């Protein structure tokens, strides 16, 4: 679907903007959070310079398609103005909610996987795709808790959302790994049950282990985006590439942001892992 986009891009955060403008690195694509730019015209100016040179993907964090109180159209309009300027190669957001009664809770919060939630998300994804006039990719969440009244699994929920709206999936491999650990499901089976044709992007980000207060002696993985990528997530990434093929992948770091060279090295590492997975596939085929 996006034949011009491949390889491992890097999540571009404000501390690296000026350096990337001054010394354009060799990166397949950058991904930005529009909410970081809407109140920062200078950063937007730098971003537009970068968008002239590199493919840019826009990853919304505040659209909140899972909110029962609806999508905020004023915010959507502001994001659209930026999207129209950047003309991104991909546009994505989260299967989560962040707003309630006009409050923005600055987090990606869990949803019960029910028919009611599905109806809400279907309506909101349609609104978003209509507003942006382009496909919207929806990302699987990182989970610590679920809801007892969920009536379907997360992959089943995502599959239904794709079927109803024609949206695409952004599969965050680290989130799958983390959620599988925390919620006790099989990460590979999860990937196996996603609709492969809908996967348009993969994400990889760092997480950290901490004691699970709810299970003595156990650990909980917390999605911090503040460390390098875990070896287990790399192994699952190879599995994902083997299953989905060469899908554009993003290296994400939002906290304790290191030198850009560190991210570049992780981007190269992702390319190496993807190549290894694809060559194994090829070897099996012949």
């Amino acid at each position, binding site marked *: 679907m996006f034949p011009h986009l491949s390889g491992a891009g890097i999540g571009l955060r404000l501390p690296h903007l000026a350096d990337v403008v001054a010394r354009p690195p060799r990166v397949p694509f950058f991904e930005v959070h529009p909410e970081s730019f809407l109140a920062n015209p200078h950063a*937007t100016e730098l971003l537009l310079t970068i968008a002239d040179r590199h493919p840019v993907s826009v990853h919304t964090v505040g659209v909140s398609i899972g909110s*029962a109180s609806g999508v905020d159209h004023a915010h959507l309009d502001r994001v659209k103005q930026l999207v129209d300027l950047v003309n991104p190669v991909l546009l994505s957001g989260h299967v989560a909610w962040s707003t309630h009664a006009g409050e923005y809770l600055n987090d990606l919060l869990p949803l019960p996987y029910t028919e009611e939630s599905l109806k809400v998300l279907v309506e909101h994804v349609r609104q978003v795709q209509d507003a942006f006039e382009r496909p919207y990719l929806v990302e699987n969440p990182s989970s610590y808790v679920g809801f007892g009244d969920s009536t379907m699994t997360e992959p089943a929920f995502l599959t239904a959302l794709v079927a109803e709206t024609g949206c695409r999936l952004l599969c965050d491999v680290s989130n799958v790994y983390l959620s599988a650990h925390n919620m006790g499901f099989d990460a590979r089976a999860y990937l196996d049950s996603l609709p492969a044709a809908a996967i348009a992007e993969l994400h990889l980000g760092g997480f950290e282990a901490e004691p699970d207060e709810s299970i003595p002696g156990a650990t909980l993985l917390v999605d911090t985006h503040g460390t390098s990528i875990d070896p287990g997530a790399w192994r699952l990434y190879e599995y994902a590439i083997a299953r989905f093929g060469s899908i554009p992948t993003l290296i994400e770091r939002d906290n304790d942001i290191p030198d850009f060279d560190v991210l570049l090295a992780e981007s190269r590492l992702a390319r190496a892992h993807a190549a290894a997975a694809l060559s194994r596939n090829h070897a099996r085929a012949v």
Partner: protein
Amino acid sequence: MPALSETQRLVRNALVQSDFDAVSPILVGGHDPAARLAIHRRHYHASLVDALRTRYPATAWLIGDVAVTTAATRYVIAHPPRVFCIAEFGADFPRFLGSEPSLSAVPYVEAFAALEWQVGRVAVAVDSPALTLAHLATADSASLMSSSMIFQPGVVYMAMGWPVDALMRIYLSNQVPPQFHMTPATTHVEVRGARGALHITSLPPAAWTFRHLLQSGRAIGQAAEAALDLDPQFDPGRALVELCDLSLLTRLA
């Protein structure tokens, strides 16, 4: 099974108000799912307190990081964000600081934090092409006095009851004098920023009033009259030329 809106209200109350009792029965995950939901509560508080600390470093310099953190911790409970860009969160934090009993010994903290908010806002502005004197000269002189002006986006006029601009200059220059006495005094300030550059200028009341009224959309004639009321020696023509020289204007409205 609660409706989605009710579920989200319960989760919201757990995050913001640490009320986990109502939401616990509907959660699953581990032996104590509410303890896991607390990860989101922790993130809500930590990320927003950190956003305020990042937005108000000069205020932390003035009153101490502990004081800002303590106030921010209370603020994020009382005033959850109603904006989607966290950089825009905390515009009324200065007023909150001003109402904190523990900060009553620093009566100028609200004015100082309000100035810092505007400094942060204009510092990331981008200038538009400036209106030149040559362009202004081509305007119809008969209608000029009834025209208004559009200013650069990174310009703010503030009138404050304390000379906190002097304090801000000390902070920005990182040259702290051995002693500095704050006494209440009405201060008229122009804050100008663009692409990271910043200028804070104290203006005489008449000049400040002229520029402030012009920026708020008043006609040149009205702004000039108000300035002349304050200072009969005020020269509106010269003031307009100065605005062009400083590249503060972008066009006639």
